[in-house]
């Protein structure tokens, strides 16, 4: 039995179809991240689960019960909004206990639940303040606390960290992960931040134009992107995509005379003369040197070298095509240098140019 089942959900606003058939089934305790750029339909999907929007067709089931047409309060969900959506005129204590208050939970029991949530989130000293007296991170904790006390079947998060500054975002991310490990509640979390998705999710659904591009664990999404879009979206800097042509059993990089052998696993999908896209992650590249050899070699000319601290990001060109590499910070490189990058066979991805889908063996 699934904790949350999304079956062929479609949503149209007039002639515009924002969701084009979404299917996801979640086991209890899973942390699903809906990842995509703005306008991909991820927030619409979350609102449909929450009951703030109605699907045009399809079904949503929580604990095997269809919740279409069920009032949001009866769906056994709790939601944390991007803007926090705290009640400004109520104290933190009442904000957190509001859901229980509306459900006529006795005062003593409600107070206990509020205390418990406040202890978990370390906001006990703030209970008698008003939201306007809190910092952004504290407000975020209150918003989470408000969802927590309800003990719902499913937590819904709508870009909860996007209003926080970088340092606080990192802290709250870890905090969320800790909470999820402790509570083991099913979570659906919407974000456009791929780092948040990678770190938090037990499974990621990458969305684009109202469809799911790929649904899988963070490892699968990162190591085996199903489409060019996923490959480009996840990872920072994004995966290098080079235009290649299959030529006589090898890959010829368009606009240069560099050739790479075609790995065995791609042979069935790569017929001669076919236009393909070659993907290599910047962090899979390493600089060839006396003690570094083996794997495939890519000769390139260095254009820009940027030291970020933990790594050196080198932007280079192979013919007219751009290549980015994340190298060890001590690598000796300068503008205009000719360099040879090496990478292992299993770091090579191939995509069909026309369909954008991965060529899988």
């Amino acid at each position, binding site marked *: 039995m699934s904790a949350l089942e999304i079956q062929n959900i479609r949503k149209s606003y007039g002639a515009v179809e924002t969701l084009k058939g979404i299917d996801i089934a979640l086991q209890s305790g899973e942390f699903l991240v809906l990842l995509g750029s703005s306008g991909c339909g991820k927030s619409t999907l979350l609102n449909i689960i*929450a*009951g*703030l929007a109605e699907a045009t067709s399809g079904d949503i089931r929580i604990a095997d019960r269809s919740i279409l047409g069920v*009032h*949001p*309060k009866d769906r056994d*969900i*709790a*939601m944390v*909004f*991007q*803007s*926090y*959506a*705290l*009640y*400004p*005129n*109520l104290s933190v204590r009442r904000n957190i206990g*509001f*859901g229980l208050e*509306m*459900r006529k939970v006795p005062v003593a029991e409600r107070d206990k639940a509020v205390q418990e949530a406040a202890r978990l989130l370390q906001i006990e000293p703030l209970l008698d303040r*008003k*939201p*306007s*007296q*809190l910092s*952004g991170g504290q*407000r975020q904790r209150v918003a989470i606390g*408000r969802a927590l006390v*309800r003990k719902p079947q499913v937590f819904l998060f709508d870009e909860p960290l996007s*209003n926080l500054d970088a340092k606080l975002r990192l802290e709250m991310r870890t905090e969320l992960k800790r909470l999820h490990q402790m509570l083991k509640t099913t979570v659906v979390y919407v974000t456009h931040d791929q780092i948040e998705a990678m770190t938090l999710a037990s499974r990621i659904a990458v969305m684009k134009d109202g469809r799911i591009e790929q649904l899988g664990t963070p490892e699968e999404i990162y190591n085996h992107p199903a489409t060019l879009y996923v490959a480009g979206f996840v990872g920072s800097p994004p995966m290098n995509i080079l235009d290649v042509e299959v030529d006589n059993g090898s890959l010829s990089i368009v606009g240069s005379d560099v050739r790479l052998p075609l790995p065995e696993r791609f042979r069935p999908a790569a017929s001669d003369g076919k236009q393909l896209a070659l993907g290599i992650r910047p962090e899979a590249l390493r600089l060839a040197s006396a003690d570094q050899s083996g794997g495939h070699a890519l000769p390139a000319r260095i254009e820009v070298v940027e030291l970020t601290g933990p790594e050196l990001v080198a932007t280079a060109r192979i013919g007219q095509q751009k290549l980015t590499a994340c190298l060890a910070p001590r690598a000796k490189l300068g503008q205009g240098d000719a360099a040879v990058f090496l990478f292992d066979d299993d770091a090579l991805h191939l995509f069909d140019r026309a369909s954008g889908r991965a060529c899988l063996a």
Partner: protein
Amino acid sequence: MERKSLLFTAFIYASALLLAVVILAPVLWLFIMSISPAADLSAKPLRWWPQEVDFSRYAVLLSTVENSAGASFVASLYNSLRIAGMATIAAIALAIPAGWAVSRTPAVGWSLSVVIATYMLPPVALAVPLYMGLAWLGLLNNIFGLALVYLTILAPFTTWLMKSGFDSIPREIESAAMIDGASLFQTLRIITLPLAAPVVATSALFALLLAWDEFFYALLFTSDLRAKTLTVAIADLAGGRVSDYGLIATAGVLAALPPVLIGLVMQRALISGLTSGGVKG
């Protein structure tokens, strides 16, 4: 911050003073007239300050001796209070749900525009239909009749104000309340209305002033002490063969007092900024 030159500072103060004088001078003159003896008011050249201060007109207007000018004035003051009060309370009671509905349901926004459009008609265009309507209902020269007429003027205006007030409250807060299990009525009562309190207060104050100052309909639809309002009573004072300008001025001062007092009391409620902190702004 940039340091301003002395000249500029002086200019700012002079401008503020000028504005204050322009606004306050008529009020001050009204008060001076009300305490000047009749002779001083018609003297040439004009006396800017009375030779002797004379508060007797206040006593005249506030006397409760039967059939006196005072009794008539006090009755009209009471009528005005009741009519403006009833119309305002009814208008706010209507405007809160109506404004909320229009704010949260953009699809029905056109209906408010239609209502506002009727507001553009000059009052004289509606005078005859309203008169006939009130006559048919038997509400001519009746405070309920006049309050009803005022309600038709105030309700669109207050609904419009309330709608813009509700518009500024994030919908996410209400969505959160809905998920938390609050009914529509609970959401309105516990969350939305307290946040909209400054707008409610502003609407109420403006509605009250509008009804308090209305003259045209009051003149047409009332005829004696049972329903006559202050504005009509003041006009009556000026309508005789001999006009006592001092008495008119005194009536004006007394008529201005209730709204001023209500305004002072409501000032605290008018302070906005209550929504800060609920959502990231």
